């Protein structure tokens, strides 16, 4: 009771101050947020929206800010056709000066031309397909999160360094799975690993007994899965059934609570690779978590929330410096080097791709644990196999 009274007093005071102070005169600058707010990937999308919303709220509370900011959220439903529609809508609105865009790779790659045509600078916050930044030379497209190149490279180096030398790859035949397979295979050879067989499979295939029996015959040290959660769950549980005694590692698509629930006890010891680090590993992670909790969002920031937060801040920093002009913001974002942010220092390369390193996670006791903190790294548990 006392708390709500205090809150009411603060709110009232804030209103009076706002009405009297010159902050009233600030121009409003609009920034678009685009991500999957409904559908199967909504958890990631809503987490990203909340995180960038938080960045905007914190900036608006800062008296030193020259502009007032407004986040305009759009739902791309993780569908390329819808994505292009909302991207066009956002880009055609001259009041919007920049965008924090896309979680799904298929949508991210479909919309790059739209942003370039309308000259709207955007910062990608979640999609990991390399071609979004490396497949074109559009000055408008930036990305704060890493790509599957980072993940594939780390996976190849980490696994071979742990003594796994022979691999069987099972990947789905979408751009996502094919890309993951490509980069993992590319980096595996120089790292000293060998692929004994590659099985491209359809993403909704249920039965893997034929593939896994063949893999069992080939006796690889490890099975590498390039796909999303359902694929990971099926491969892991059917390995159990057929008595395949290799271990399993997978791309970030399987690093979900759904995988742990689906594979049950068999999930233990599965290794995965992800661009993001746990919040507690970021210098300002705790502050972000506290502010996020204070802001009263009902949903989690999710793994890519900190990236969306950093992308929004990067854009607002640029607006503060050069004003709400698309061309000037583009030039300012292009030149980003050594910029401190929640997710660490942001450095854009010549394709406006942030240089990040991926992280290793392991399923331990029904949770995904940051590898250096895990009992596996400490030697208390072992990733058996052979």
């Amino acid at each position: 009771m006392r708390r709500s009274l205090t809150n009411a007093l603060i709110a009232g005071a804030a209103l009076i101050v706002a009405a009297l102070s010159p902050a009233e005169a600030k121009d409003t600058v609009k920034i678009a947020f685009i991500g999957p707010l409904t559908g199967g990937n909504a958890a990631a999308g809503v987490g990203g929206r909340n995180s960038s919303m938080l960045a905007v709220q914190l900036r608006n509370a800062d008296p030193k800010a020259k502009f007032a900011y407004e986040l305009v959220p759009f739902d791309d439903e993780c569908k390329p056709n819808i994505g292009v529609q909302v991207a066009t809508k956002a880009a055609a609105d001259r009041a919007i000066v920049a965008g924090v865009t896309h979680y799904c790779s298929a949508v991210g790659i479909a919309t790059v031309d739209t942003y370039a045509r309308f000259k709207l600078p955007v910062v990608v916050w979640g999609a990991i397909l390399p071609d979004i930044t490396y497949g074109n030379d559009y000055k408008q497209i930036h990305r704060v999160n890493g790509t599957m190149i980072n993940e594939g490279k780390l996976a190849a180096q980490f696994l071979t360094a742990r003594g796994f030398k022979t691999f069987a790859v099972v990947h789905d035949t979408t751009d996502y799975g094919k890309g993951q397979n490509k980069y993992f295979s590319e980096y595996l050879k120089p790292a000293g690993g060998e692929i004994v067989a590659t099985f491209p499979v359809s993403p909704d295939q249920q039965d893997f007994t034929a593939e896994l029996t063949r893999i069992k015959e080939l006796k690889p040290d490890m099975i590498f899965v390039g796909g999303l959660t359902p694929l990971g769950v099926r491969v892991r549980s059917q390995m159990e059934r057929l008595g395949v005694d290799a271990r399993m590692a997978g791309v970030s698509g399987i690093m979900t609570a759904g995988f742990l629930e689906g594979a049950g006890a068999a999930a233990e010891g599965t290794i995965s690779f992800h661009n993001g680090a746990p919040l507690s590993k970021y210098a300002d992670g705790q502050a972000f978590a506290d502010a996020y909790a204070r802001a009263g969002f009902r949903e989690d920031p999710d793994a890519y929330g900190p990236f969306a937060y950093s992308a929004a801040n990067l854009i607002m920093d640029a607006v503060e410096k050069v004003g709400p002009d698309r061309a000037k913001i583009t030039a300012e974002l292009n030149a980003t080097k050594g910029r401190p942010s929640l997710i660490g220092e942001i450095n854009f390369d010549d394709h406006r791709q942030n240089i990040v390193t991926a992280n290793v996670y392991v399923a331990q006791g029904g949770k995904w644990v940051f590898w250096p903190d895990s009992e596996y790294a400490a030697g208390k548990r072992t990733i058996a196999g052979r």
Partner: protein
Amino acid sequence: MDIGFLAQHLFNGLMLGVIYAMIALGFSLFFGVLDVIKFSHGDVVTLGAFAALGAIAFVGSVVPLPGLALVLGLLAAIAASMAAGMVIGGTLVLPLRNAPPVNVLLITLMAGTILREAIRLGVPNGGNPKPFPALLPDRRIEIGSFSVGIDSVTILLAGLAVVVATHHLVTRTRLGLAIRAVAQDPEVACLSGIDFRRTVLGTFALGSALAAVAGCMLGLYYREINFSMGLVLGVIGFAAAVVGGLGSLLGPILGGFLFAGVQTLVTITVPSASAYKDVAAFAVVIALIGLFPTGLISERASERV
């Protein structure tokens, strides 16, 4: 390839085949009595599996007896699927009996979509794959490189037994006689005192019960079920039924094993082509339908002129 792996591949193929055969049998039974294609059949399989999962979770939280949970789960699956099959049959298919067949096809396709989405939205986190509890003893039999769980053998034998029992039911019992009579000529069957509606609903119940058992077998074997698994299973079951001979009894069983055989063979021989195993299997189906338009084992009296 050593003999152990050959045996393992053979076992995998048999397992898939028996599941396909049970679904294909349903398609064939429905086509036999009413000349309709009921496309919601695959989703009835899913419904059975989810009903079993729910019942098992409920029983498991009351008494820790895996055997009892399994039996009750199976019964719940059969009850739910039978009910769904009879409701779809009684309210959607029977009234449209004299409408163009494409109407029935479409309406059951939509009924299937409703079932599938209801499972996705109604079950907590229904969009994610759900783990199915391992209720059978999981000791393994290892002979050289051939390793098989006792549970897998149990599931396979149970499936074969259900297929044989269905055959027995249709060929040796009064209900079976009625089903065959209606299939041959509904009017004459009615004249000789067979209750048409009851027989048709009985057939839908029988086919759906088979689907429920197939759903439980899938769950027990793969230890995972998901809301959309019925979609592909339905198409495969339908293809197996058509290639074997819609309306016949042995045809769909043969078709099921054939489909599984081609899928397994493709994966073994060309690993990099494993993404194309469904393509290969459906291509074989197309070729066989071209060669044997009425199926490998056709209905004895074809009504199509």
